[in-house]
């Protein structure tokens, strides 16, 4: 998996935005056509069937429509990550695209806090694109109740799935993020997953979640979420299995998305949609996703963009980049988000790799900026200390 950041333009200004630091950088604003073509070549070489376009707000790129057309013509399925401030001509263009070739993850407005204009705009998008849209939410605190997205899924006949992200910190940045107080259960996640299951809406968790955020009972009931199985993860309740079955169910701690993806490409008899949903256990999802920036530089992920940037390889593929990021990061970062991670049972069983790497970096004292080769900055220091 790799994401193509088409542009640094975005008008939403979300306080938790994981791209906040990168968007403010004075590099190229929009990806040039020759860079986009090189990126598609890179995806082909890496056997990646999906062009995942993000930003900023990718639909604000002046050549967005051309790029999507180009990607589809070259055989890619296109997935767009949008904040919902989409130019109308682009919206109507997207409405005409075939659903099997084009889909969108819409970062849903917060009905309690977002401006009415944004909410209305998003309603229009949902009405126009319907099943092409999968809603996404980013949770910043345990007090939130994002259940309103379920109503939208039903009301506008959207894809019956919701992507849930946890607001993670940018290493060396200053975005708002979900403050974790230790390896404790966070009831809102379980509640949300359970509600989704009851309504027949599949919930996919993004990176940064760890098994310790859930009760043992929940882990038992949804064991395929937490282990390296070979089928799509689902929030639908299955037969209860004891937690200790994790020991047998987990085949390897060092599996990575590339291996699983290559495996999925070989399994031709399976349903394509199922293959695309195949993911690592939730505790193993922090790894180099590789975001390709508008100027063509590659980063492990936005939250770690200040740590290492590599040029888009003209010959190598995604595995080469991932290996390089993994090597550098594994020696530079603590093994887990919490002190308890070192002795954690989930980690020993290979079903958790210690959580968000950017969050791990913030444990470093006296200031993790030293590891980035940056001078200590008073404001950032304070930010890190509040963890």
């Amino acid at each position: 998996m790799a994401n193509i950041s088409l542009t640094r333009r975005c008008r939403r200004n979300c306080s938790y935005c994981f791209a906040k630091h990168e968007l403010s950088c004075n590099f190229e604003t929009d990806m040039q056509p020759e860079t986009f073509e090189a990126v598609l070549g890179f995806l082909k070489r890496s056997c990646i069937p999906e062009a995942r376009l993000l930003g900023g707000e990718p639909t604000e790129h002046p050549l967005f429509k051309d790029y999507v057309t180009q990607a589809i013509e070259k055989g890619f399925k296109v997935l767009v990550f949008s904040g919902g401030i989409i130019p109308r001509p682009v919206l109507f263009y997207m409405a005409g695209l075939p659903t099997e070739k084009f889909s969108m993850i819409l970062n849903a407005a917060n009905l309690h806090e977002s401006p009415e204009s944004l909410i209305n705009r998003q309603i229009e998008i949902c009405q126009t694109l319907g099943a092409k849209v999968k809603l996404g939410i980013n949770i910043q605190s345990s007090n939130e109740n994002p259940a309103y997205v379920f109503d939208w899924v039903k009301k506008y006949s959207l894809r019956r799935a919701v992507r849930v992200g946890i607001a993670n910190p940018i290493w060396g940045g200053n975005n708002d993020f979900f403050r974790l107080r230790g390896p404790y259960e966070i009831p809102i996640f379980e509640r949300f997953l359970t509600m989704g299951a009851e309504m027949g809406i599949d919930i996919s968790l993004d990176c940064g979640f760890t098994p310790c955020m859930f009760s043992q009972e929940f882990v038992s009931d949804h064991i395929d979420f937490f282990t390296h199985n070979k089928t799509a993860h689902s929030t639908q309740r299955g037969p209860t299995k004891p937690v200790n079955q994790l020991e047998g169910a987990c085949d390897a701690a060092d599996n990575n998305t590339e291996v699983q993806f290559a495996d999925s490409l070989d399994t031709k008899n399976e349903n394509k949609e199922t293959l695309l949903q195949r993911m690592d256990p939730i505790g193993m999802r922090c790894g180099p996703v590789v975001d390709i920036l508008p100027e063509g530089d590659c980063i492990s992920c936005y939250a770690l963009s200040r740590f290492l940037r590599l040029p888009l390889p003209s010959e190598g593929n995604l595995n080469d980049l991932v290996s390089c990021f993994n090597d550098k990061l594994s020696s530079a970062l603590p093994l887990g988000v919490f002190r308890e991670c070192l002795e954690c049972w989930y980690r020993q069983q290979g079903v958790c790799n210690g959580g968000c790497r950017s969050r791990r970096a913030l444990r470093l004292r006296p200031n993790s900026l030293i590891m980035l080769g940056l001078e200590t900055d008073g404001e950032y220091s304070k930010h890190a200390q509040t963890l």
Partner: protein
Amino acid sequence: MRPSHHVSWLVEKQGVTLFTSDKGMWGSIPYPHAGLWALIANGSYTKVLATELMSILMTISKEEAEREIEDTLETWIKNELIHET
């Protein structure tokens, strides 16, 4: 005595893990020596205080504690983890 500028660390349950900006993870300092590191890291190192602390933590005499501290500091200085102020 202060940690070198290129050194970061984190407190684990079993001790302290050190990272250097050029080589990444350097290694771990288990207790009781992690206690000595804590004194240096927070700027409160004095020979008297360190001797007292290590003598208690290791259940050894003050003379033995002094020798233990000297050896430890020598290693850390040699590895450029700390420097004298």
